[in-house]
C-alpha cells in the first residue's frame, strides 16, 4: 500500500500553526522556566503569538484581495479539510483580537493585589490547609495561558472546518481547555468548580449528540466533507429521515455551544461561576467561532435542505430571544444578567442566520445574512468583553461585587467607569449611535428580506423587553443611593483598562461609522464550496 503525504499549505495555515506552537511552547515553559519568571514569559509569549497570528491572518486576507470589487473566493487547504474564505478569515481576525484582549484580562494582577484571578493551586481542596499555603506562598497558575492558546486554536479551526470530522475535533479542542479554565477561580472556588463540572458534563452530553449526528449524516451521504453532503442533499438520494435526524443532532451540538434555548441552561451558572476574565473571553470568542461554524455547516452542507431546517430554527430563534430577555428581567446578579443577555443575543444572531437565501435571490446592495451575522458577532464580542472587564473591577472586601444592589451609586463613585458601562449597556440594548443598533438593524434586515417577518416582529418586541433590564441597571448605577458603604472601584492596571477602552471605543466607532466594515463584509462574506 502506498502512503501519500498530505499536502499542507503552511503559509495559509500560519495563523493556526502559530497559535498551536505558542500553546505547546507554553507547556514547555511550565516545565522548564523557574516559577518566578513564568508569568512574564507566558504573558509575553501569548501576546507575541497572538499578534503574530493576527499579522499572518491579515496577510492571508490580503491574498484574497478583499478591497477589490470582486475578491477571490478563497482557498481549500489541507486536503480540503479547512476552507479559508472571507467568513473564515474575518472570524479569525475577530477571534484573535478578542484573544488578545482575553490575554490582557488573564494577565491582570493589580485587582487581586499583585496576583492573577486564577487559583493558586487548583488541586488543593477549597478551605483546606493546602489552599491556605498556596495563597500564602503567592502561587498562581500560569498554565492558563497555554490553555487559552489551545482554546483559541480550536476556535480558529472551528469556523474554517470543511468536513464533519475536522469540525468535531475543533469543537473538542476549543471546549476542553474552557471546561478547565472555568474551574480555576481564585475566589468562590466551589462555585467555580461546580460551574466547570456542569459545563463539562453538559458539554460532553451535547458532544454525544453531535457525534451521533455525524454518524447519521455520514450514513445519508456517504461522506464527511461538506461539498459531498451538499451534493447528496441536492441530488436527493438516500433516506430523508437519516438526513433530518443527523441535521437535528448536529444542530443540538452547535446550538449548545452558542447557548440557544432550550440548550442554554448551562450559560448562567457557568458564566457566573467562572473567573470573570474567562467568562469575558468565553462569552465573546466562543460565539464568534460557533456562529462561523453554524453558518458554514448549514449554508454550505445543508443549504439545499434550507426549507427543511428553517421552520425549526424559526422556533428556536424565537424561544431563545424570549427566554434570554424575559429571564433576564428577574436577575439580581450582574454576571447572571449578562449571561441571559448573551442568550438573548444568541437569539438575535439566529434571526440573522434565518436570512438564508440562495445567492441568486440576493440583490446587489442587500444585506446578506453572513455579512449581518458576522457584523453582529463583532459588535457583540467587543461590547461583551468590555462589559465583563468592568464587572471585574467593581469589588468589595470579598472580591467582585456582582450583586446588583451593590452597584447602586456607582455613578457617583466612578463616573467614567459607570458611564462606560452605561454606554455598553445601551449598546447591548441597540440604541442608535452604538454598534448594537447597527448590528440589530443588519440582522433584522437580512431576516426580513428572506421573509422571516414573524421572527423579526418577536425580535423587535424582545429588544424592547431587553432594553428594560439594561436601563434598570443604569438606573441602579446612577439614580439609586448606595446601601451602606457603596461599591468601590479598584483601579485596574493598564491591561484591564485598555480592554475596557478598546471595547467601548469599538462599540462607539462601529455605531457611528459602520459603513466601511459592512462594505468589506458585503464584498467578502461568501463561502467557498
Amino acid at each position, binding site marked *: 500500500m502506498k502512503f501519500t503525504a498530505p499536502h499542507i499549505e503552511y503559509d495559509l495555515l500560519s495563523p493556526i500553526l502559530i497559535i498551536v506552537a505558542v500553546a505547546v511552547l507554553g507547556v514547555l515553559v511550565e516545565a522548564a522556566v523557574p516559577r518566578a519568571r513564568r508569568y512574564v514569559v507566558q504573558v509575553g509569549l501569548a501576546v507575541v503569538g497572538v499578534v503574530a497570528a493576527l499579522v499572518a491572518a491579515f496577510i492571508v486576507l490580503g491574498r484574497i484581495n478583499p478591497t477589490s470589487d470582486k475578491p477571490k473566493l478563497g482557498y481549500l487547504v489541507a486536503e480540503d479539510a479547512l476552507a479559508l474564505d472571507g467568513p473564515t478569515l474575518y472570524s479569525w481576525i475577530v477571534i484573535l483580537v478578542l484573544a488578545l484582549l482575553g490575554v490582557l484580562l488573564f494577565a491582570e494582577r493589580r485587582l487581586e493585589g499583585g496576583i492573577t484571578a486564577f487559583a493558586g493551586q487548583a488541586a488543593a481542596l477549597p478551605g483546606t490547609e493546602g489552599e491556605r499555603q498556596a495563597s500564602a506562598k503567592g502561587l498562581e497558575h500560569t498554565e492558563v495561558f497555554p490553555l487559552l492558546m489551545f482554546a483559541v486554536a480550536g476556535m480558529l479551526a472551528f469556523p474554517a472546518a470543511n468536513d464533519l470530522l475536522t469540525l468535531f475535533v475543533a469543537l473538542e479542542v476549543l471546549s476542553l481547555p474552557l471546561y478547565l479554565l472555568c474551574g480555576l477561580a481564585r475566589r468562590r472556588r466551589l462555585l467555580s468548580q461546580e460551574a466547570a*463540572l*456542569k459545563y463539562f*458534563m*453538559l458539554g460532553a*452530553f*451535547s458532544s454525544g*449528540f453531535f457525534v451521533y449526528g455525524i454518524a447519521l449524516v455520514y450514513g445519508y451521504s456517504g461522506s464527511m466533507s461538506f461539498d459531498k453532503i451538499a451534493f447528496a442533499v441536492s441530488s436527493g438520494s438516500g433516506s*430523508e*429521515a437519516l438526513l*433530518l*435526524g443527523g*441535521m*437535528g*443532532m448536529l*444542530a*443540538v451540538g452547535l446550538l*449548545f455551544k452558542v447557548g440557544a*434555548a*432550550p*440548550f442554554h*441552561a*448551562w450559560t*448562567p*451558572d457557568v458564566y457566573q461561576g467562572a473567573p470573570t476574565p474567562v467568562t469575558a473571553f468565553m462569552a465573546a470568542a466562543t460565539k464568534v467561532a460557533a456562529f462561523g461554524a453554524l453558518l458554514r455547516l448549514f449554508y454550505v452542507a445543508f443549504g439545499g435542505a434550507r426549507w*427543511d*431546517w428553517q*421552520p*425549526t430554527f424559526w*422556533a*428556536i430563534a424565537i424561544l431563545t430571544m424570549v*427566554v434570554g430577555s*424575559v*429571564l*433576564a*428581567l*428577574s436577575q439580581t446578579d450582574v454576571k447572571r444578567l449578562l449571561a441571559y443577555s448573551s442568550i438573548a443575543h444568541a437569539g438575535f444572531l439566529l434571526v440573522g442566520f434565518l436570512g438564508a437565501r440562495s445567492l441568486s435571490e440576493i440583490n446587489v446592495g442587500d444585506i446578506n445574512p453572513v455579512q449581518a451575522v458576522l457584523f453582529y458577532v463583532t459588535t457583540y464580542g467587543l461590547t461583551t468583553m468590555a462589559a465583563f472587564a468592568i464587572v471585574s473591577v467593581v469589588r468589595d472586601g470579598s472580591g467582585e461585587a456582582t450583586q446588583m444592589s451593590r452597584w447602586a451609586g456607582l455613578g457617583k463613585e466612578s463616573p467614567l467607569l459607570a458611564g462606560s458601562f452605561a454606554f455598553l449597556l445601551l449598546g447591548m440594548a441597540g440604541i442608535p449611535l452604538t454598534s448594537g443598533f447597527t448590528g440589530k438593524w443588519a440582522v433584522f434586515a437580512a431576516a426580513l428580506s428572506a421573509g422571516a417577518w414573524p421572527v423579526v416582529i418577536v425580535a423587535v418586541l424582545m429588544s424592547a*423587553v431587553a432594553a*428594560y433590564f439594561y436601563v434598570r441597571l443604569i438606573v441602579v448605577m446612577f439614580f439609586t443611593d448606595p446601601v451602606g458603604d457603596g461599591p468601590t472601584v479598584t483601579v485596574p492596571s493598564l491591561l484591564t483598562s485598555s480592554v475596557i477602552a478598546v471595547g467601548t471605543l469599538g462599540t462607539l466607532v462601529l455605531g457611528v461609522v459602520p459603513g466601511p466594515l459592512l462594505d468589506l463584509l458585503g464584498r467578502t462574506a461568501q463561502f467557498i464550496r
Partner: protein
Amino acid sequence: MVNLEALHDVPVVGSVPTDGAFSLLWLVIALPALGAAILLLGGRRTDKWGHLLGTAMAVGSFVISLILFFTLLGKDADDRQVTQHLWNWFTAGSYSVNFDLLYDQLSAVFLLLITGVGSLIHVYSIGYMEHDERRRRFFGYLNLFVASMLVLVLAADYVGVFLGWEGVGLASYLLIGFWQQKPSAAAAAKKAFVINRVGDIGLSLGTALIFITFGSTSFAVVSAASSHASDGALTGIGLLLLLAACGKSAQFPLQTWLLDAMEGPTPVSALIHAATMVTAGVYLIVRSNFIFSLTEDARTAVIVIGTITLLMGAIIGCAKDDIKKALAGSTMSQIGYMVLAAGLGPAGYAFAIFHLLTHGFFKANMFLGAGSVMHGMNDDVNMRHYGALQKAMPITFATFATGYLAILGIPPFAGFWSKDKIIETAFADNTLVGLCALIGAGVTAFYMTRLMLMTFVGTKRWEKDVHPHESPKVMTYPLIALAALSALGGLLTLGGWIGDWLEPVTGHAEHHELPFGMAPIVMSLIILLVVAAGVAVAWQLVGQREVPREAPEKVSIFTRAARADLYGDAFNDEVIIKPGAAGIRGLTVFDRVVVDGAAEGTATAFASMSARFRLLQNGFVRSYALALLAGAALVIFALLAVNFG
C-alpha cells in the same frame, strides 16, 4: 452654446473652477476656524496671547478677502462666479452634497464686510474686554462666529448654508450669554436660541422642499431649474425661507429676541446683532433670488414683513432709555428696510445689499461708540444718566455723529445713498409701502436725534463717582475707521457701481417710474424734509427740556406700548406659550393614564412570567441534562414533523 440667459428669466449660478489666487478661498474660513479651535481647546495655556491670535486670524482672513476681491475685479464679468470644490460631504442614493465654496460678486462684498468689520471689532475688543478674565474664551467665540458666518455666505449649497446658519446661531447664543453669571444674560441667550429655532425649522423645511422639487440643493442646479418649477412649490419655498430670515434677522413676528440680545458684550452687539449675523436673512433672500424673482406671492409676504418691522423697530427705538436697546430697535428697523428692498425683486436686491453694507458700517460704528460711552460711564446703559458727554469724549462724539448723520440719510453720508434708493424703489412699486418707508425715515430721525441729545448734549445727569473719559486708542481707532466708512460708504454707488457689480447675481432690474412722474431729486428732497421734521420734533421734545433722571410714569398709551416692545413678548405668551402649556398638560395626563397604564401592565406581565420561568433554572445538572435531551428530541421531532407531517 445656446444663450441660456435668453431662455431663462433668472440668472444661473455659474461655476468657474478655482485657479490662482482663488485657491486660497478655503483659508478665509480656515483661519478663524483654526483660531477658534486653538483658543477653545487650548485652555488656559492660551490666556496670555489668545486675544492677539484671535485678532490676527480675523485680520489674516480680511487680507485674503482683499486679495480675492481685487483678483475678482480683474476678471471678466462672465468669469466672476468661482466655485471651489473641497470634498464630497455626503451622498445618499442619488442625492449628493458637495462641500463647495461659491465666490461671486455677492459673497465677495460679504467677505469684505464680515472680515473687515470683524477685524475692527476684534481690535476694539482687545481694549473693551481687557479686564474680563475670560477674554480668551470671548475671542474664541468671536472667531467661531466669523468662521461660521463665512461658511454661511460662501456655501454653494443650501445644506452648507444651514451649517453656517446653525454655527452663527450657536456663536450668537454663546456670546449673548457670555456673562453667564447674570441671570438676565442667560435668559436672553436662551430666548434668542429658542426663537431662532423657529426660523431654523423654516430653513430646514425649505431645504427639504427644495430637494423634493429640484432633486438637489446646490445653488447651481436649483437656479438652472427654478423656472421650470411649479408656482406652488416656489411660493412654498419662498415662504419657508422667509420664515428662516425672520428668525435670524429679527423680523416680525420673530423679532423679540433681538432687544434682549443686548445683554451680550457690546462688541458682540456691534458685530453679530448689527453688522453681520442679523443680516443673514437678507443674504438668504437675495441669494435665493432665483426663487423669489419667480414668485410674486412670496415677495409680497417679504414686503409686508419688512414694512411692518421697519415701523415697529423705529417706534420701539423711540421709547427706550437703554442706549443699546434704542440702537437694537433701530437695527430691527433698518433690517426691515433691507428685507423690504429684497422683497421688491430684481429692482431692490442690489439696494438691499447696499444698505446692508452701509448699515454694517454706521451701525457697528454707533454700537462701538455706545460701548465706548459705557466704558466711560462704568457700564451704565441708561441714557437718562448721560448728558453733555461731547466734551468728555470728543472722539467718540465725533465718530458717533458721523454714524448719526449716515443713518438719518443726510447727503453725502453713506445712509443717504442706500436708504434713499430703497424708499424710491418702494414708491415705484407701491405708494402705500413707499409712504410707510418714508414715515419710517422720519421716525428714525426722531429717535436717533433723541439718542444723540440725551447722550452727548444737555446737562450732566451723571451718577456719583462717574468720571467719563475718552477710551483708549485701541478702541477709538476702530471707531475712526468705521466713521470714515460711514461717511464714505456712498462711494460704492458711484456711477451705479454696486448695482452693475451685483447684476450678474441678482438679475437685470427694469427701470421703474416714480409715481406722479416725479424726478428722483424731488423724491430725495421730500425724504430730507421728512427727516428734518423728525429732527425738529426731537429737538422740541428732548433738546429744549430738562431730561428727567427717572423715566416718567405718566405717559401716553403709545409710549407705554413702545416701552413694552409693542407687546411682542405678551403676544407670544398668550398665543403660543399658554396654549402650548395647556396642550402639554393634557398630553401628560394622557401619558400617565393611557400610555403608562399599558406599559406598566405589560411590564408586570413580563415580570411575573420571568419569575415563574426562573424556577426552571434550579441549578441541578440533572435537570439541565434532561432539558437538553428534551430539547434535542423536540428539535428532531420538529424537523421530521415539518417534512413528513
